[in-house]
């Protein structure tokens, strides 16, 4: 119960999602969830990477004749903002920052947190207590507040946003991984490997890690959504990407000023976030079913 008490909401959500997912549907249907998720994410990534090739507008080009044009205006499928800049172009270009965070921040914290938890769980005893007290300390702060505080000291910028996430959000992985390692350590295959005289490093990396990695990988999908939301939240608060750089959160903040007359300014970038978020969430669900079919 105490593990439950201190788990972060996204961890709990993942556990529940894993259980719920494995109950419904046959294998084909479960694989379909993964495929749809991958397809949606693929569409987003391809659109963002190839944007300059097919977009007819620049994200910073000002069209004085068409400020605040509604969606479906010829030449501006999603409309324009207060300076007549094309919203579709801005969403596509802005997505670079948000996707960079989803992959760049998540992968670093995934690796570091996993190793940290593996070491804590495998060594146990005093090493474990000392390492996990540090993790507890991070959990005592609301994530967003700690990240804002770090950015406050370093100064608002995209790079410092990465730094703040790297510093803080590996702890969830460490905690999940430690719990998994503690259980795995007592399993026959690990005992057998140790009896054969394999070194600690080999047992940890070649025996335990491959068997428990799926849990942190599934969690990283939930975490990627969290990081995108975080990046856009910081952009919204003016603590991440700085104008005129297009970023989904800063676009929403900008659009809020025109909410009384032009709803699309704030709405469209948010839909982009939901789109990518749902993609990651479907991938997470699908992976959970395929990698851990035993979780029922």
């Amino acid at each position, binding site marked *: *119960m*105490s*593990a*439950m*008490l*201190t*788990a*972060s*909401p996204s961890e*709990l*959500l993942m556990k*529940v*999602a894993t*259980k*719920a997912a494995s109950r*419904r549907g046959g294998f084909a249907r479960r694989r379909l969830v993964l495929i749809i998720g991958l397809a949606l994410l693929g569409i987003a990534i391809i659109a963002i990477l190839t944007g300059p090739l097919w977009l007819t507008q620049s994200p910073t080009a000002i069209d004085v004749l068409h400020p605040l044009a509604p969606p479906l205006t010829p030449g501006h499928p999603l409309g324009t903002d207060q300076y007549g800049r094309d919203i579709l172009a801005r969403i596509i270009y802005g997505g670079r920052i948000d996707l960079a965070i989803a992959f760049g921040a998540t992968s670093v914290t995934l690796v570091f947190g996993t190793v940290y938890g593996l070491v804590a769980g495998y060594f146990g005893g005093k090493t474990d207590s000392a390492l996990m*007290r540090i993790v*507890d*300390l991070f959990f*005592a*702060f*609301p*994530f*967003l*507040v*700690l990240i*804002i*505080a*770090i*950015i*406050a*000291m*370093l*100064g*608002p910028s995209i790079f410092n946003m990465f730094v703040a996430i790297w510093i803080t959000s590996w702890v969830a992985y460490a905690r999940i991984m430690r719990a998994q390692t503690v259980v795995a350590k007592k399993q026959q295959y690990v005992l057998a490997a140790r009896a054969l005289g394999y070194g600690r490093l080999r047992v940890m990396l070649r025996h335990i890690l491959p068997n428990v990695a799926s849990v942190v990988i599934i969690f990283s999908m939930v975490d990627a*959504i969290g990081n995108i*939301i975080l990046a*856009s*939240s910081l952009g*919204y*608060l*003016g*603590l991440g990407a700085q104008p005129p750089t297009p970023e989904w*959160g800063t676009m*929403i903040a900008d659009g*809020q000023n025109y*909410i*009384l007359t032009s*709803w699309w300014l*704030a*709405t469209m*970038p*948010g839909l982009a*976030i*939901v789109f*990518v*978020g*749902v993609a*990651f*969430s479907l991938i997470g669900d699908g992976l959970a079913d395929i990698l851990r079919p035993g979780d029922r």
Partner: protein
Amino acid sequence: MSRFGSLPRRLVHMVILLFGITLVTFFLLRLIPGDPALAILGSSYTHTRAVAIDSTLGLNRPIWSQYALFMGRLFHGNLGFSFFYDESATTVIGQHIQPTIFLIVYSAVLAALISLPIGFIAGLRSGGVIDQSSRVFFTLSFAMPAFWLGIILILIFSVHVPVFPISGFGRGLGGHLYYLFLPAITIALGFSTVLVRSLRAATIGTLQSEFIDTAQMKGIRWSRVLRKHVFRNAVLAVVAVYGVNLAYLISGTVLVENVFSLPGLGSLLVNSVSDRDYPVVQGVTLLFALLIVTINLLTDIAQAALDPRVGQEIGT
């Protein structure tokens, strides 16, 4: 072991945690590149003031002595001086607490009102209409940033159908409840995602327990079994989730206060970042961490009080 047997150990842990929290908060100021005195003073920099800051923070002393100074001040409720507001940081923070606390409590209550019935029914009739539609809705809302959801709610309920105000805190209890409805529901919807799914899972789990079969075989009416056995046990299982997420609500508050321009700690925090008002940033961070530690402890106590089995398990 008695029901609250492990609480002393939790309290010791809490003290260690509090010590760690003050250390982290103390070291935050060290992250500032360059001269902290210069950064803290900003445009109000004068040589005399810089010397004064150096001596109040003890910047010319060894680091452990600076920390001792920081702690000594903290015990007197002194968080430093805000040059931006030209007042003590403690006073500035005190003026912003009320909307935040009100918002946290309000959204916690709304979230319980939303997720208890939905989660319970989704669990009872898993695969049914309510279960399916709530799953779709909450999957979407999990991918939604709270600040965007807030703006969408403003669009619908303040601009399109003007029922609720766009911003402001209102006057008196009724005014607060009315003005804060949209902000609170924004946070509550995000919060409900986790609650509904946990409660649904807990309900399904409880329904499969043997004591439910026993109760049925004793001939107790089904509605009574649901009320007295299923619901009670399922809710117990979710109390922990509720406590953890109450702490998580604070992140939502920071965002939503900015969306609705509420004069709370979240807006203060963000404004203080752009104003480079470091003592206030430090103070708000510390206060939020204290709030979380307190809520976690209360959750533990509540659990131990509600469920006699918990007392033996708590405390790792």
